[in-house]
C-alpha cells in the first residue's frame, strides 16, 4: 500500500519531466537544441507564482475546470498499476469508473471553455466533445477484449505482475493491434499531433490549447499538471502492453519501466516531428481506424480463446 | 290443369313488359293499378272456402291497391301536369331486353320454391319475383321521381303477391296494417313529389345530389 502511494506520488512528480522529453525530440528533429528537460518544472513554478486575470463573462465553473480535470487525472492514476506493482485503489469495474471520471474532467474543461463566451474556445470545446466519443468506443472495445482474456474488469487484473504476459500468451499477435490502436487513442486523448497540435499558433486549428486560452497563473498550472499526468497515465498503459515482463528485483524493474516509458515518449515525439496535423474532418477516420483495429483483435482472439 | 289465377298472372307478367317499355306516366299508373288489383284478388282465387269477412277484407285491399293508391299518384301527376317521364339511366330497348331475361329467370327460380303443392298456381311465384325485381330495376333505371314511386309500389305489389298464398286467410289484421303502411308511405312520397316539383323545376332526381360524402 505504502509502496503504491509512493509510486503514485513519484509518477505525479515525474510526469512533467517525461513530457519535456517530447519537446527535446521535436527540437532535435527540428535541428534545434531545444529546452532543458526540466523546462516544465520551471514553467509550473513561474505559473504558481503568478496571479490570474478572469474574464468578466466567467463564473465559478471557469475556476472549477482546471481543478476537476486535474483531480480526475490524479484519480485515474490511483487505479493504475505502475511498473506492474499493485495500484492504490482497485475493484472490479474500476476501468469503467476511470473512463467516466476522465469524462467528468472533460465535461468541466469544456464547461470552463464555454464559460468565457469566446468563439474560439467554443470551437475547441465542440471538437473536444466530439473526438473523445470515438476514442471511448475504442477503449471499450479494448476493454471487451481484455475482459474476454482476463475475465475481470480492473486495471490491476490486466497490468499487475504477470497478468499482462498472460494476456499476450492468450491473445498473441492480435495484441499488436491493440497496442497500435491504443497508441492512436493516446495521441488523440492527449491532443498530440496528428489530431491536435499543441505548438501551433493559429487558434482556429487547436483543440485543447484553445480551450485554455483564458486561463492563467496557478489555474493554468493545474491544467498543465493535469495534462502531464493524463499523458503519463496513457503512456504507462502502453508501456505495460509492450513490455509485460516484471522482474523480481524491484530496482531492475523500475529502471526497465523508466526506460521503456522514455522510449514511448520519444516515439510520441518522433510521431509529432514526422507527421503533420490532420484536417479536422479526417480525424474521426483516424480514430475509427483505432476502433476497428481493436475490433479485429477482439474477433480474432475470440477464435483463440474458444 | 291450368289454374284460373294463372291467366290473370300471365297478364301481370305482360304488364311488367309494358311498364318497361312506356314513358307515359298515365300508362304506368294504370299498369301499377292493374297489378295492385291482381295482387289483391289473387288470394280470392286461391281460397277455396271464402268467408264473408274474407270477402270484405279482400275488397278493401282491392280498393286501396287498385284505386286509392293509383288515384293519389294520378292526382299528383295532374297537379304537376307532366305527361311523360323521359329521364332514364337505362334505355327502353335495353330495359325490354332485361325484362325478358328477368321473366325467364324468374320462371326458372320459381321452381326452387315449388309452392304449387299448396297453392296450385304455377305462375304466382314467378310473377311475384318478376314484379319485385322489376320494381327494383325501375328504381335504379328511371330518374323521374314519380316513376320511382310507382316502381316502389310495383315492388310492394310483388311482395304481397308472394305473401298472399303463404299467409292465406290468417292474420288479416296484420296484412291490413302492412297495407296501411304502404298507403301512408305512398301518401308521403306524393307530398315529397310536389315539394320536389316546387323546389326544383322538374322531377329529375339527378338534381338531388347535393348531399354527398
Amino acid at each position, binding site marked *: 500500500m505504502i509502496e503504491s502511494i509512493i509510486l503514485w506520488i513519484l509518477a505525479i512528480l515525474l510526469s512533467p519531466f517525461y513530457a519535456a522529453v517530447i519537446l527535446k525530440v521535436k527540437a532535435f528533429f527540428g535541428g534545434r537544441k531545444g529546452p532543458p528537460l526540466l523546462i516544465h518544472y520551471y514553467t509550473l513554478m513561474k505559473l504558481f507564482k503568478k496571479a490570474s*486575470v*478572469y*474574464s*468578466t*463573462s466567467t*463564473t465559478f465553473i471557469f475556476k472549477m475546470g482546471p*481543478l476537476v480535470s*486535474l*483531480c480526475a487525472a490524479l*484519480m485515474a492514476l*490511483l487505479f493504475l498499476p505502475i511498473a506492474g506493482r499493485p495500484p492504490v485503489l482497485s*475493484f*472490479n*469495474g*474500476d476501468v469503467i469508473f476511470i473512463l*467516466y471520471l476522465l*469524462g*467528468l474532467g472533460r*465535461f468541466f474543461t*469544456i*464547461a470552463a471553455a*464555454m*464559460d*468565457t*463566451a469566446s*468563439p474560439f474556445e*467554443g*470551437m475547441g*470545446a*465542440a*471538437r473536444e*466533445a*466530439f473526438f473523445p*466519443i470515438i476514442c*471511448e*468506443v475504442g*477503449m471499450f472495445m479494448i476493454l471487451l477484449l481484455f475482459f474476454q482474456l482476463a475475465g475481470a*474488469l480492473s486495471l490491476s487484473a490486466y497490468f499487475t505482475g504477470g497478468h499482462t504476459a498472460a494476456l499476450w500468451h492468450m491473445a498473441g499477435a492480435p495484441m499488436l493491434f491493440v497496442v497500435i490502436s491504443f497508441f492512436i487513442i493516446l495521441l488523440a486523448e492527449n491532443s498530440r499531433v496528428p489530431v491536435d497540435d499543441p505548438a501551433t499558433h493559429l*487558434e482556429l486549428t487547436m483543440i485543447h490549447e484553445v480551450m485554455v*486560452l*483564458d486561463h492563467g*497563473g*496557478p*489555474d493554468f*498550472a*493545474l491544467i498543465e499538471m493535469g495534462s502531464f499526468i493524463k499523458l503519463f497515465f496513457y503512456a504507462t498503459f502502453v508501456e505495460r502492453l509492450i513490455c509485460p515482463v516484471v522482474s523480481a528485483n524491484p530496482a531492475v524493474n523500475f529502471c526497465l519501466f523508466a526506460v521503456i516509458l522514455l522510449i514511448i515518449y520519444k516515439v510520441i515525439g518522433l510521431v509529432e516531428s514526422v507527421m503533420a496535423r490532420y484536417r*479536422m*474532418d479526417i480525424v*474521426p477516420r483516424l480514430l475509427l481506424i483505432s476502433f476497428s483495429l481493436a475490433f479485429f483483435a477482439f474477433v480474432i482472439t475470440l477464435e483463440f480463446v474458444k | 290443369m291450368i289454374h284460373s289465377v294463372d291467366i290473370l298472372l300471365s297478364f301481370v307478367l305482360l304488364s311488367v313488359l309494358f311498364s318497361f317499355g312506356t314513358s307515359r306516366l298515365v300508362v304506368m299508373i294504370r299498369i301499377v293499378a292493374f297489378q295492385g288489383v291482381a295482387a289483391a284478388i289473387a288470394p280470392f282465387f286461391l281460397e277455396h272456402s271464402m268467408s264473408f269477412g274474407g270477402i270484405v277484407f279482400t275488397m278493401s285491399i282491392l280498393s286501396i291497391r287498385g284505386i286509392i293508391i293509383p288515384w293519389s299518384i294520378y292526382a299528383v301527376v295532374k297537379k304537376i301536369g307532366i305527361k311523360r317521364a323521359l329521364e332514364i339511366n337505362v334505355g327502353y330497348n335495353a330495359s325490354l331486353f332485361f325484362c325478358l331475361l328477368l321473366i325467364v329467370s324468374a320462371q326458372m327460380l320459381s321452381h326452387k320454391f315449388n309452392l304449387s303443392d299448396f297453392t296450385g298456381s304455377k305462375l304466382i311465384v314467378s310473377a311475384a319475383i318478376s314484379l319485385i325485381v322489376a320494381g*327494383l330495376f325501375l328504381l*335504379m*333505371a328511371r330518374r323521374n321521381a314519380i316513376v320511382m314511386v310507382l316502381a316502389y309500389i310495383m315492388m310492394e305489389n310483388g311482395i304481397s303477391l308472394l305473401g298472399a298464398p303463404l299467409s292465406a286467410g290468417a292474420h288479416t289484421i296484420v296484412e291490413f296494417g302492412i297495407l296501411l303502411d304502404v298507403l301512408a308511405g305512398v301518401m308521403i312520397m306524393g307530398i315529397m313529389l310536389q315539394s320536389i316539383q316546387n323546389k326544383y323545376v322538374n322531377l329529375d*332526381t*339527378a338534381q*338531388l*345530389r*347535393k*348531399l*354527398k*360524402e
Partner: protein
Amino acid sequence: MDFIFLSILLMVAGTALCLVIHRQFTLMKTTGVLAISAGCLIGLFNSLIQLFHPGTEAFAAAYLHGFSLSFAIDGLSAFFLVIIYFVSFLAALYSFHYLSTPEKALRTGLSYLFFSLLIASMVLVVVAANMITFMLFWEIMSLSSFFLVVYDYEKPENRKAGYLYFVFSHIGAMMLFAAFGLIYGFSGSFGFDGAASLPDWVKIVVFVLAFAGFGSKAGVFPFHVWLPHAHPAAPSHISAVMSGVMIKIGIYGILRVYAVLNDHHPLFGEILVIAGMISGILGVVYALGQQDIKRMLAYSSIENIGIILIGMGIGMMGVSAGNPVMAVLGFAGGLFHVLNHAVFKSLLFMGAGLVIKKTGVHDMDAMGGLMKKMRITGITFLAGSLAISGLPPLNGFVGEFFIYMGGFKGAGMDKLPLILSLMAIISLAVIGGLALACFTRVLGVVFQGEPRSERAAKADEKGPMMLIPMAALAVSCGIIGVFPEVFSLMTIRGVSALNLGYGDIPFSPFLQMTGNISRSAAVFLLLVICVLAVRYFLYQGKSIPRAATWGCGFTRPTVKMQYTGSSYARSIIDFFRPVAYLCENHPPVQGVFPAGTQYSSHVIDIAERYMEVGIVRPVLFFFDKLRWIQQGDIHPYIGYILLAIVLLLFFV
C-alpha cells in the same frame, strides 16, 4: 393499500375543491398544492414501507357484476409507487409559483384536477392486478395527461402536440387491448395469472403487442414521435412528471407483462436490447440537433428510455441464458436508471421551465449567461447535466455501471448474447459520450457565456417554491450517487418481484459494488478538497483583476460572435448524417456589399418523416379513393341494397 386510496382521495377531493374556489387564485393554488403534496407524502411513506417490508398486499372489489377491480402491491409496484409519489410531490410544489396567471384561474384549477387524476391513475395502474383494472386506469391516465398537454391550447403547435399524443396513446391502448385480449382468449380469465399457461407462440405475440403498446407510451424509438411534441407543450411541472414518471409506466408495463408471461424466451431480451440501442443513440443524436430546450430534453428522455431498455434487455437475455448474475445486474441497472432518470430529468425540466418562464423564449440560442442571474437554477441544472451524462460521483453513473457489469457478464458468453451485449456496451459508451456533448452544449449555451437577447439579460429567479424542489432533486442526485446502497436495495426488491425463479436475491455483491463506488467517490471528493486547498494557498494574497475575454486579437467582440448551440453540435450531427439529416435554410451572400442574411437549421427525425410518407399518406389516399362510393345519387344507393342481397344469397 388503504393509505394509497386515502392519498388518492385526498388529492382528487382537494383539487376538485379548487374548481369551486377558483375565484381566489392564490387560495386555490394553495389548496391544490397542499392536497396533492399531502396525498403524495402519505403515499410515499406507505409505499416506502411496502418496499422495505416485502410481502404483497391485495385488495379487490366486485365491479359491474362479473368483473372485479383488484389491486395488489408487490416489490415492483412499490418501487414505481415511490418514484411516482416523490416526483409528483416536488412537481406540485414547483407548480405553486410556476402557474402564475390569475386570468386563467379556472384553467389552472382544472389543470390541478387533471394533475391529481394523472397521479391517481398512474398509481392505480401500477397497483392494478387484473386486465380490466389496468386498462381502465391506463385510459384515464392517457385522457388526463392529454388535457394537461393541451393546457395552453392557444398555440397551434400545442394543439398538434395534443393531437399526436392522443392518437399515439389510443393506438397504444388498442395494442394493449389486443395483447390482453389474446391472454383472455387463451386463458379465459381477466386476471394476469392466466397468462403463464399460454402456448409459446401466443406468448411471443402477446409480448410483441404489449411492447408496441407500452413502447408508444414510453417513447421507444419508432413510437416516440408524439413525445418531442407533447413535452414542450405541457406546463413544465407536467412535463417533469410526464417525462420523469409517466413514460416509465410504459416500462413498468413491459416488466409486468414479462413477469406474468413467466416465459424466458430469448427473443424478448433481444427485442428490448435492439430497440434500446436504437432509441438510445438516435434519441441523443436528435437531442443534440434541437434548439428548443424542452424538445431537447424530450429527446434525451427517449435516449434514457433506451438505456433502461438495454438494461432490461440484458437482464432478460441473462435469464434466458441461465446467467442469474447478468440477469439481476441488468434488471437492477434498468430499474436504477428508472429511478435516476426520474430524478434528474424532472430536475432538468423544472430548470428549463424556469428559464423559459423568465426569458420568455424556447430557443436556446436566444439565451445565455443565465448562470450569473439565476445562480441556484444554474447550479442545480449543472448537477442535473452531470448526472444525466452518467458521470461519477452523481447518480446517473451507478445505474449505467450496473448495466455495464451485466453487459460484460453477457460478453463472457457466446453467440447471440455475446454479440448483443457487445453492441449494447459499445452503444452505451456512444450514448454516454453524446450525452456529455449534448449537455455541455446546453449548459454552455444557456447558462454560460454572455446573454444573447434582451430578455435573457434581464432574467431573474423569483419564486422560491420553484427553487426548493430543484434544490431537493439536485441534492438527491448527489446522495444517490455517493451512497447508492439503500437505493440499489430498492431496485433489488423490484427485481425479486419479477418471479425470475431465483428466490430472494443475495444482496452482498451489490453491497460490494456500491461500496466500491461510494469509496472511490469519497476518495475523489477528498482529492478535490486537497487540490482546492492547494489552489486557495496559491491564490493567497494575490490581486485578481477582471477583464474582457481574450478575443484572439479581435478587439470588438459582440455577443453574436459566441459559438451557438447549432454550430457546437454541427460536426457530430454530420457524423450521423444518414439517420439525422440536417435541413438548412441559408440564402447565399451576394454582391460586393452583401445585404443582411440569415441562417436556420433543424434536424429531421426519420421516424416522423417515414410515418408521414409511409403510413399517413397511403392511408389517406386509400380512403380518398374509397370516398367514391357515396356521390349523392340515389340510384346506386338502391343498387347497393340489391347488391348486398344478391351477394348474401350466394351463401345461403
